[in-house]
């Protein structure tokens, strides 16, 4: 399907940005053999392909993302290249650029690289939410409520909390990590496994703790997808307080747009 002779990048590992690899998995190997082609290489690659071919490949990438996004697990560049882009890897940046444009113009979604080191992407919603309840009466996913509680507490507590604080808060809300919950099932698994894999949360071990304890932080997806300002607003409503009364949190939520808050165009 492609007319060029051979791929210049498939075996080059000299510019690999991977860290020393005793943890090298199959995917990382593939990723290390993929180096971002230069602009010149991309241009040359494009010359040898028809518009239709590039469009087709872009469409395949878009479809791959849309389906992968159902589970909200970030897409790794290595998988994308291996399964979809394949021979077109020499024009990879161009394909990503076009795919991002399709997401933006057709779907109102933003393609974001949440991890510049490991090259992982997610899709987030570009459209501003209408104030008040959403016009779509589709049933809300209760897990989102659970996530809100956890992210909210972490944020209000300065960005890091020990896991016990979360478990205690949830216990008060009748969600016991040791028991099966009516709505969420294996709560511990949902929180420490599913939410972590989706990159909503980070669950890291605290060194020197006996018995082993972890702490929770916001994950890379949460940084992109969740609005601290809106969380603070909800907190204000709940506590019947002005959001500004939490000065530190307010400052953080309304700080000069760093690339980490939603609502800013942060295409890396």
């Amino acid at each position, binding site marked *: 399907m492609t007319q060029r002779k051979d791929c210049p990048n498939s075996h080059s590992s000299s510019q690999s940005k991977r860290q020393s690899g005793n943890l090298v998995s199959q995917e990382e190997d593939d990723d290390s053999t993929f180096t971002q082609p230069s602009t010149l290489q991309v241009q040359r690659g494009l010359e040898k392909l028809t518009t239709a071919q590039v469009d087709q490949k872009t469409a395949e990438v878009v479809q791959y993302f849309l389906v992968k996004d159902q589970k909200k697990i970030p897409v790794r560049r290595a998988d994308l290249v291996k399964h979809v882009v394949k021979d077109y890897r020499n024009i990879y940046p161009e394909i990503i650029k076009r795919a991002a444009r399709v997401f933006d113009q057709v779907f109102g979604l933003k393609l974001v690289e949440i991890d510049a080191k490991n090259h992982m992407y997610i*899709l987030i919603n570009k459209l501003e*939410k209408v104030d008040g309840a959403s016009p779509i009466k589709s049933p809300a996913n209760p897990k989102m*409520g659970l996530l*809100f*509680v956890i992210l909210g507490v972490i944020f*209000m507590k300065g960005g890091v909390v020990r896991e016990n604080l979360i478990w205690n808060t949830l216990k*008060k809300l009748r969600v016991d990590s040791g028991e099966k919950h009516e709505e969420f099932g294996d709560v511990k698994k949902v929180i420490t496994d599913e939410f972590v894999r989706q990159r909503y949360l980070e669950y890291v071990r605290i060194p020197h703790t006996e018995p082993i304890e972890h702490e929770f932080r916001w994950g890379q997806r949460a940084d992109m997808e969740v609005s601290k300002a809106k969380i603070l607003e909800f907190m204000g409503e709940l506590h019947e307080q002005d959001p500004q009364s*939490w000065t*530190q*949190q307010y400052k953080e939520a309304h700080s000069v747009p760093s690339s980490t808050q939603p609502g800013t165009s942060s295409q890396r």
Partner: protein
Amino acid sequence: MKRTRGGGDEEAPRQNGSVGRKKGDPQQSEADDGGSTLGPADLQDDDNDPGLRREIRSKYRDLINSVQQNREDMLSPSNNKLTEVLEEANKLFKDVRQAREAALDAQLLVVATDLGKEKASQLFAEGTAFDHIAFAERLLSFMGLNRLEDGEDDQQNRGGIDGYLPKDAWHRVARRAESCFMTAPAFHYMMGSFHAEPPPPKQKIERQRKAPSKEAARIMPTQLKKMEGSHQEATEKEVERILGYLKSYYQDDPTSPISYYEFVIDPNSFSRTVENIFHTSFLIRDGLARMYLDDDKLPCIAPVEEGEVEAGGSWSRKQCIISISPKIWRELIDAFDIRDTLIQPQNTQTE
């Protein structure tokens, strides 16, 4: 190890920038007092007295435990328990002589420092304190918690907590919280995806094969019961009659195979031929007759000896469908030169 308050002077000064007390003030230094009033002999005793050593270590362990067990308590900004623990430790430290005790002291410091760090992060800054328990209570109200009047509670609760949550509690939270998230809506094909179902399993066929022999006897009667009396009996009788013909022809000459077509075809009537085929098929089905191909690949029929076939048929059963049209019927008559029917029509049969 130096702390911000107190601290022995007998150690080499290791002040990590902490102010402590003024250096030129020996009178207030507890350690100095202790050190100067005791004579060398006493020091020796203290050093080696195992009872005292154990006591010191035990006290350290108590302190460490109290910090670990009463963690939540110590974290509360309303008290100074942590400071009290440190003061205790300070006092103990002056009696420390051996490495074992010092190690415990170090361990206590790690635990206390940890707690101190957490306490500090709790404070965070003026006016930004966030009580997660109060938050949980407010959220419960938001969820629609039905707080009952009396303290003791009923079926649905964990002990002691009053009220019960409505079923859609978490949905309410999710709905309100949705606006905080810029989640991309999940993409699904509107009509679902193509889901190929495998063909029905072959087991069904086998079961049907094994059942008929048992049920056949039963099926015939039930069918016959449903039909009008004359028809049922007629079919049954006819089948038996044909079996009789088959057997008698076979006995006439067991070695000579009976051609199937010659057997069933009535050259005078097409409809009777069809009926003959129909009735003969019952014989085959019930295992009373068998069909086979002879050397010329022409179908032949022969009765089955009693005892040859077990009920349930361990023989391999085959199905075949025979079709006949008037044209084929005539062709067969010509081909086999059938002049007369082997199965005599009954007088009661209607054409």
